[in-house]
């Protein structure tokens, strides 16, 4: 019988809190803002 591992759940919880904190700082809007534009220089064009 293997012991249960708690560390993965602690890690998941910590990163979930991080993501929620990012959402609180409106970071998804910043991601969206970049993702909906074609950035030619980011592709090495121009």
């Amino acid at each position, binding site marked *: 019988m293997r012991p249960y591992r708690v560390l993965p759940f602690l890690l998941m919880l910590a990163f979930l809190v991080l*993501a929620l904190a990012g959402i609180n700082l409106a970071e998804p809007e910043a991601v969206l803002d970049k993702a909906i534009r074609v950035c030619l220089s*980011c592709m090495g064009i121009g």
Partner: protein
Amino acid sequence: MPGLRRWIQVAATLLSNGYWLFPWKESLYRGPLKAVCLPGLNCYSCPAATGACPLGSLQHVLAELRPGFAAGQPRPGLYVAGLLGFSGSLVGRMPCAWLCPFGLLQEWLHKIPSPELPVPRALSWLKYLFLALFVIALPFWAVDEFGYGMTWFCKFVCPAGTLEAGIPLLILEPELRALVGRLFYAKLTILVLFLAWMAVSRRPFCRVACPLGAIYSLFNKHSAFRLVHHPDRCTRCRACFNDCPMGVKVYEGANQLDCIRCLRCLRHSCRFGAISFEVAGVGPQVGETGGTTGGTH
């Protein structure tokens, strides 16, 4: 299992690039899903992309960190880091094998009949260099007079971006071709070299250059989903190593940094029940007579 994985890879690729209206709309998808970082490497400038590339997003966040703080709108990238870390903590590098469109391309290209060229293990450390330098350090530190950095990996390296966004955009918008210069030709060369390498080696980009895989790999040892190696059953026949698309010697330790959890070793290679999996300590137990109980074989 390889069949199921292939179907999931194809479905993930189609879902990640499901905006097929772009030839008529003459623009890429601009809906709310683009705020969500996809788990695999998929350029969000691809005309069909439905989500954001986590690597591109991470670089953008770091490139604009200073101006954001200066403007009183700090966006330190917690959202992107949180999503990547959550996924990594859950399944480690599994998205590379099951969800990444560029991973699927590599596996398909390797089906082209060609001589097999091994990837030197020492090269696998290069992806951490790409992560540290091109994704984190340079976008953050190499800034212009206004404090803005660049997306160095996207701009100077990423062959996925060249294939999924650069080339399609140049086909769809011929007027952009006048802007193509040495840099794009250099990136095109990188792409061609990797495509050729994919035919003769298994997943060379994942093994050598992918910063996203490098991030996920850091979670392999402590993720909820893990492989378990049973040394008492292992004959060290190397069947797992010979079958592994990442060249992992499972008998030297499960959950190595390069393991992408394709489960090929577990389902296909090992005939002795020496490899199983567990989720946070719970998993099929190895029986007395070989194989595992609980339905893994």
